[in-house]
């Protein structure tokens, strides 16, 4: 525990009664006294405030000072159309490796004269090294280490943030902007990891606690821990790096083809040109042999990560393993994701081995719970 880092909100978490756990090298709140189940439901019905200050924030600035050059440089590392990203808009992306696997997933925002990236906590050291190793010729890569990151999620998020930053109300899903609050710049995006409307807010360390407290003082805003963050994102069908996607899964296998725009596909304006393009474009054309799918297990027992999946109620062959699974408080039942042979379709049945018993799980569409974005 000695090497664990803390975010600027650590003392606030303790004051709020959080249970702290190690996560991606940080001591983070897994839950508050309210508990995971109620925190989850509260986020869906009102608003939840999450400390995501462990995540990496990176600025990518072209040495030419032209945003197009930064976009084209980043496109060498991601199968995503960064060039067409409009000013003050954000897009989901992933770093791929030469084998077509995923090194990390991230958000990329166009902030006029530079790109702003938010990457996973557990990958940020390698991500920054990766960016520097490949893009330093064209770009300046700057990790931002003096800002916290908050997520405010749920149907009450807009009113709560607009009370402090009125301009946030007019943002649409995946908009980004810089707003003044008490003399400091907040870097706000209308996005999140819960399937709800909401925001992620980068704030200078010196004001992070004050902002968190000001948001918590708004009606309906409660602090939410990593436990509920996980069940919320799983209900929304979103991937967790290191579990649902990693260096052994390609974007096509991971069912993230929606994030690969036409310009980067075969025949597109800038097709290929990213690590693993051969395999990824090949899978886009011919299909991958396995796919990440949603599963709804029968009954109430969750099928968690690692549960083996079979093609028969008895005997048969193992055809996959659960990569994320748990109980969905809003759907009031178990849910999971797994990589299964692409021949399986929605509505097909597989069997999960739960402590020696085969339990039915049905291949199901994701999100499990409808998303509620402000488009």
């Amino acid at each position, binding site marked *: 525990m000695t090497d664990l880092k803390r975010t600027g909100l650590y003392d606030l978490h303790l004051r709020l009664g959080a249970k702290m756990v190690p996560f991606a090298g940080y001591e983070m709140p897994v839950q508050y006294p309210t508990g*995971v189940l109620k925190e989850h439901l509260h986020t869906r019905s009102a608003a939840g405030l999450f400390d995501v200050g462990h995540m990496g924030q990176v600025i990518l600035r072209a040495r030419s000072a032209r945003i197009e050059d930064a976009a084209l440089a980043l496109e060498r590392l991601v199968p995503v159309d960064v060039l067409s990203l409009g000013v003050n808009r954000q897009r989901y992306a992933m770093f791929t490796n030469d084998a077509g696997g995923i090194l990390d997933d991230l958000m990329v925002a166009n902030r006029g004269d530079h790109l702003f990236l938010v990457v996973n906590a557990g990958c940020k050291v390698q991500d920054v090294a990766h960016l520097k190793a490949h893009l330093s010729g064209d770009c300046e890569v700057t990790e931002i280490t003096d800002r916290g990151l908050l997520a405010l999620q749920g149907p009450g998020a807009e009113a709560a943030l607009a009370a402090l930053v009125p301009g946030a109300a007019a943002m649409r899903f995946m908009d980004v902007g810089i707003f003044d609050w008490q003399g400091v710049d907040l870097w706000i995006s209308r996005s999140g990891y819960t399937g709800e409307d909401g925001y992620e807010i980068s704030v200078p360390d010196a004001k992070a606690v004050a902002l968190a407290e000001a948001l918590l003082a708004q009606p309906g805003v409660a602090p939410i821990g990593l*436990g509920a963050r996980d069940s919320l994102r799983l209900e929304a069908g979103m991937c967790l790096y290191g579990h649902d996607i990693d260096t052994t899964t390609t974007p096509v296998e991971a069912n993230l083809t929606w994030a690969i725009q036409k310009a980067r596909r075969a025949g597109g304006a800038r097709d290929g040109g990213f690590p693993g393009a051969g395999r990824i474009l090949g899978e886009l054309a011919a299909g991958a042999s396995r796919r990440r799918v949603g599963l709804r297990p029968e009954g109430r027992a*969750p099928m968690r990560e690692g549960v083996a999946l079979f093609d028969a109620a008895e005997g048969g062959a193992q055809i996959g393993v659960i990569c994320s699974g748990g109980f969905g408080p809003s759907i009031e039942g178990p849910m999971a994701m797994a990589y299964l042979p692409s021949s399986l379709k929605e509505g097909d049945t597989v069997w999960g081995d739960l402590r020696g018993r085969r339990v039915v799980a049905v291949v199901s569409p994701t999100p499990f719970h409808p998303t509620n974005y402000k488009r």
Partner: protein
Amino acid sequence: MTMKFTEEHEWLKVEGDLVVVGITEHAAEALGDVVFVDLKDAGMTVSKGDEVAVIESVKAASDILAPLDGEVVEVNPALGDNPSLVNEDPMGKAWFFKMKIADLSALDAYMDEDAYKALIG
């Protein structure tokens, strides 16, 4: 008689010639919100350490083990319908099962409340 406690955070209480088994408040709190309780059927003969039930919380699955050799004569049907009872009343309404054992003195080997409180700090 007063309650006895195991290192696996189960409580045992003698009721007539039966031993009632549940999990402690400390355990329920550590588990978090319980969403499912998978209880074996009553009537089975168990040895100490056998799995009698599985509790699924939002965080993890945990086994409930037989604390003694004996026969499980009754399981709590309320837990199937309302698993959150485990969080609401772990030491009362959320008992898991009742056992018939050969010799009640076997309970003496387990901790009393003070010893258990010392264990969990």
